C-alpha cells in the first residue's frame, strides 16, 4: 500500500505542473505556519513540537525521504527537520529554500545504554580531547559547513580494523550526519564514533534501522551506541544515557522557492536524470545488488528450512496421536494469527536476543517457521487430493507403506501441490521486504537507503519492484522445475 502511494505520488511529480503558491517571503516565524500543511517525521522532536499547535495541519511520515518527497510534490507546504537535512546543492537543484530557522537550539549527542557508562565516559574523553586540539571544530566545519560537498573524497577519520566489535546503530542515512557511499559510511557522527573506536581499539559494526527499532536494539543489548542526530530530551534521558552534547542544532523550516515550477523537464529527461542519480552515481546500484543477494539468501534458505519443517509439521498434523495433531494445529493457529513482522521482531529482540545469531539467520528462522505452516498445509491439501484408492492399489500390489508413499502418492501429490507451494514461496519472497526492521539491508531497504540519499521515490521503488517481479518469476520457475515429477516414471 505504501509502495503504491509512493509510486502514485511520484507519478504526480511527473504530470503536475502546478506552481508553488506558498513563497518563502510569507513565512518568517513559527506564527506564520498557521493554516499550512507541515510535514515532518513521526516520533521526532519536531513532531512533538507541531503536535502542540492546533492551527496547522501536521503530516507525519515514517522517513525523512518521504517527508521531503511530500514537500517536492506539493502535498506539504512546509517541511520541518534538522538544519543539516537538505544541503545547499540539493536545495538549489530542487528549488527548496530555508524559510527560517527555529530559535531553540537543541543539544545533540550520541546515545548509549543505561549500563554503558564506561563507553559514554570514553566518548566524553574523546570529545574533550578533540575540543582541546581543535579537531572537533574542524570536523564540524567540514561536515556542517558543507565543505564536503566540494570535497568529494568525504575525508574521514580512518577506521580501526581490529579488536572487539563496537556495534553502532545509525537511524539515519543522511549526509552530513551519517550516510553511505559505495558501501562505506561517512559523516560527522560517524567520525565521532570512529574516534571513539580508535581510542578503545575496537572495530565498528554499523547497521541502519529506523528510530523505533534502533532504540529497541540498543535497549536489548544488541547494539552499543546509537547515532543519527539524536536530540537530548528528558524522556530519552530516562531510558538511555547520553554523552556530552557535541553540538546544538536548530530546527529548519523548508519551503519551495517562489516561482519554482514543479515538473519542468520532459518525462524522459527526468527519468534519465533520476536513473543516473539513483543508480549510477556513487555506484548506488551496488546497494541494490547486495540487497538483492540478501533477499535471495533469506528467501532460499527460509524455503529450504521451512519446507523441511513443514514435512514434520504435516506428519504431526496427520498423525494418529491426538496430542501431536493438537500441537500441529496450535502451531498453525499461532502462525496464521501473528503478523510476520511481529514474529520477526519477537525472535530478534526476545528469543534470540542473546544468542549471537546474526540478523540474517534470525530472519531465515522466522520466515522458515512461518513458511513451515504454509508448506505443511500445502502438503496436506495435495496429499488429500490423491485418493486413498491409490495407496490401497500400491499396498495391494506388494509395495511397503513407505514405497507406496514415495512411488505412488508423492508424485501425484507433487503435481497438484506444486502451484500451491509455488505461491507460498512467492509470498515468502515478497514477505522478506520487512527484514529492514531488524537491520538487514535487503532489496527493499537498499531502495530506502537510496531514497534517503536522493529524495527520489520513483526510480528506487520502480527498480526494486521490477527486481521483485523478476525474482518472483525465477523462483516460480525454479519451484516448478524442482517439484514437477519426471515424466518417465521408470
Amino acid at each position, binding site marked *: 500500500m505504501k509502495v503504491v502511494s509512493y509510486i502514485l505520488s511520484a507519478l504526480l511529480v511527473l504530470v503536475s505542473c502546478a506552481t508553488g503558491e506558498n513563497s518563502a517571503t510569507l513565512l518568517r516565524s513559527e506564527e506564520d505556519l498557521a493554516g499550512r500543511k507541515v510535514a515532518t517525521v513521526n516520533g521526532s522532536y519536531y513532531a512533538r513540537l507541531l503536535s502542540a499547535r492546533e492551527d496547522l495541519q501536521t503530516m507525519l511520515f515514517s522517513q525523512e525521504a518521504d517527508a521531503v518527497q511530500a514537500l517536492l510534490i506539493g502535498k506539504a507546504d512546509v517541511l520541518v527537520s534538522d538544519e543539516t537535512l537538505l544541503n545547499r546543492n540539493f536545495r538549489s537543484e530542487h528549488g527548496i529554500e530555508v524559510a527560517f530557522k527555529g530559535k531553540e537550539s537543541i543539544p545533540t549527542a550520541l546515545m548509549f545504554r543505561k549500563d554503558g557508562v564506561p563507553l559514554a565516559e570514553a566518548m566524553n574523553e574523546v570529545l574533550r580531547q578533540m575540543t582541546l586540539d581543535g579537531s572537533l571544530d574542524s570536523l564540524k566545519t567540514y561536515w556542517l559547513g558543507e565543505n564536503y560537498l566540494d570535497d568529494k573524497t568525504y575525508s574521514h577519520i580512518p577506521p580501526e580494523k581490529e579488536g572487539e566489535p563496537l556495534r553502532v546503530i545509525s537511524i539515519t542515512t543522511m549526509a552530513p550526519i551519517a550516510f553511505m557511499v559505495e558501501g562505506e559510511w561517512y559523516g560527522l557522527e560517524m567520525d565521532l564514533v570512529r574516534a571513539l573506536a580508535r581510542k578503545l581499539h575496537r572495530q565498528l559494526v554499523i547497521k541502519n534501522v529506523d528510530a523505533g527499532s534502533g532504540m529497541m536494539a540498543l535497549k536489548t543489548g544488541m547494539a552499543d551506541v546509537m547515532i543519527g542526530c539524536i536530540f537530548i530530551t528528558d524522556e530519552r534521558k530516562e531510558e538511555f544515557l547520553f554523552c556530552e552534547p557535541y553540538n546544538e542544532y536548530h530546527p529548519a523550516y523548508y519551503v519551495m522557492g517562489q516561482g519554482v515550477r514543479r515538473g519542468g523537464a520532459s518525462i524522459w529527461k527526468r527519468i534519465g536524470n533520476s536513473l543516473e542519480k539513483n543508480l549510477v552515481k556513487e555506484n548506488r546500484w551496488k546497494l541494490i545488488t547486495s540487497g538483492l543477494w540478501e533477499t535471495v539468501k533469506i528467501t532460499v534458505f527460509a524455503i529450504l528450512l521451512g519446507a523441511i519443517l513443514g514435512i514434520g509439521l504435516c506428519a504431526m498434523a496427520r498423525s494418529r496421536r491426538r496430542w501431536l495433531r493438537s500441537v500441529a494445529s496450535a502451531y498453525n493457529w499461532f502462525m496464521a494469527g501473528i503478523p510476520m513482522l511481529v514474529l520477526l521482531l519477537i525472535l530478534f529482540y526476545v528469543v534470540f536476543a542473546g544468542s549471537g545469531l546474526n540478523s540474517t539467520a534470525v530472519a531465515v528462522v522466522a520466515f522458515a517457521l512461518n513458511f513451515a505452516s504454509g508448506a505443511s498445509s500445502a502438503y496436506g491439501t495435495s496429499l488429500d487430493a490423491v485418493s486413498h*484408492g491409490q495407496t490401497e*492399489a500400491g499396498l*495391494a*500390489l*506388494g*509395495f511397503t507403506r513407505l514405497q507406496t508413499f514415495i512411488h505412488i502418492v508423492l508424485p501425484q501429490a507433487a503435481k497438484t501441490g506444486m502451484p500451491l507451494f509455488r505461491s507460498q514461496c512467492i509470498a515468502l519472497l515478497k514477505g522478506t521486504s520487512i527484514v529492514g526492521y531488524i537491520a538487514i539491508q535487503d532489496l527493499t531497504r537498499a531502495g530506502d537507503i537510496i531514497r534517503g540519499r536522493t529524495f527520489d521515490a520513483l526510480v528506487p521503488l520502480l527498480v526494486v519492484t521490477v527486481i521483485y517481479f523478476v525474482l518472483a518469476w525465477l523462483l516460480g520457475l525454479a519451484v516448478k522445475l524442482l517439484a514437477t515429477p519426471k515424466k518417465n516414471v*521408470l
Partner: protein
Amino acid sequence: MIQVKHLSKSYRNPDGSSLTVLKDINCTISKGDIISLIGPSGTGKSTFLRALNLLDPPTGGEILFEGENILSRSYPVHKLRQKMGMVFQGFNLFEHMTVLENVMYAPVKILGKTKEDALKEAMSLLRKVGMAEKANVSPSCLSGGQKQRAAIARCLAMNPQVILFDEPTSALDPTMVGEVLSVMRQLAKEGMTMIIVTHEMKFARDISTRIFFMYDGYIHEEGTPEQIFIAEKITPALELCQLFMPVFLIAGDNLTIRLTYNEFSEVASLDFMVAGISSSPLEDCDADILQKARTLSREIVEEPTSKGFRVKFLL
C-alpha cells in the same frame, strides 16, 4: 491354500460404540478354487475380502496362508500381497502413469525385473486383456471397462497365486460389464485361484467352483452353485408342498407333483395335478393359505386338464 478360522472384525465408531461387521467366518480355500461371495449389501463381503490381504486388518481369529498365520506381527504383509493380487471396484490405476507403466511398475520396482523383461510381459498381458493398443495411454483417457481390464493386467503382472476381486463390475456401465467378465472367465479357465465379491448372479453361478452366501457377518451358506441356487428356490417349493398337499390330496382322486427346472438348474415351477375334479381346488382353500402362496410364488396359474385340474406355481 487359505484357511480362515473364527475371523471377526469390528470397528470402533467415533462415539465410542462399536460395530461388528464380521462375526465368525470359517472357510478353507484351495488352489484352483473360484469362490464367489454373494449376499445382500452390508453383510461384510468386501470387508472379508479386504481382511484376506490385510487392507482391513481383522480384529480376531486366524488367517493361514500356505500354513502360516498372516496375522502374526512378524509376518511380512507386503510379501503376502505380492502373492495375493487385488482388483478394486474403483480400478485405482495409478493416474500419473501410462497403462503400460501401470503394468510394468511393480514387477520392476518390487520383483527387480529388467525393464525389457517387464515390458515384454506387460505387453503380452495387455494383449491378453485386449488393451495392447492402449498401452501408452493415460488411464484418464480410458472407459471404465478398459480401466478395469488394465487393472487386471497390472494385477497379473505380479504373477499372483490368488486374485481378490472386490466388486469388479459394480462401477461399470452395463454395456462394459461383459468385457470385464469375459477376461475373468478366461482367467478361470486357466485355473487361476480367484475370490470374487459380486452381484452378478449368473456370472457367479457360471464361473464359481463354490459360492459363499454371506449374511449378517457370517457365511450363511456355502456350496456349489447348484446347491446354493437350487436351495434358493427349492425352499419355497417345499413350503408350497407342505401347504397344499393336504388340501389337494383330499380334493381329488389322485395327486401328481412335478418340479420343473430351468437352464440354470433352478426350480422354475411347481405343478400340482389333481385328477377327477372339474373346478379349481384352490376355491376350497383358506384365505391365509392363499395369501401365503402368493408371497412364495411369482404367479399362480389354474387350468383344467383332460383328467382334472392343474395348479401351477411359477417361482
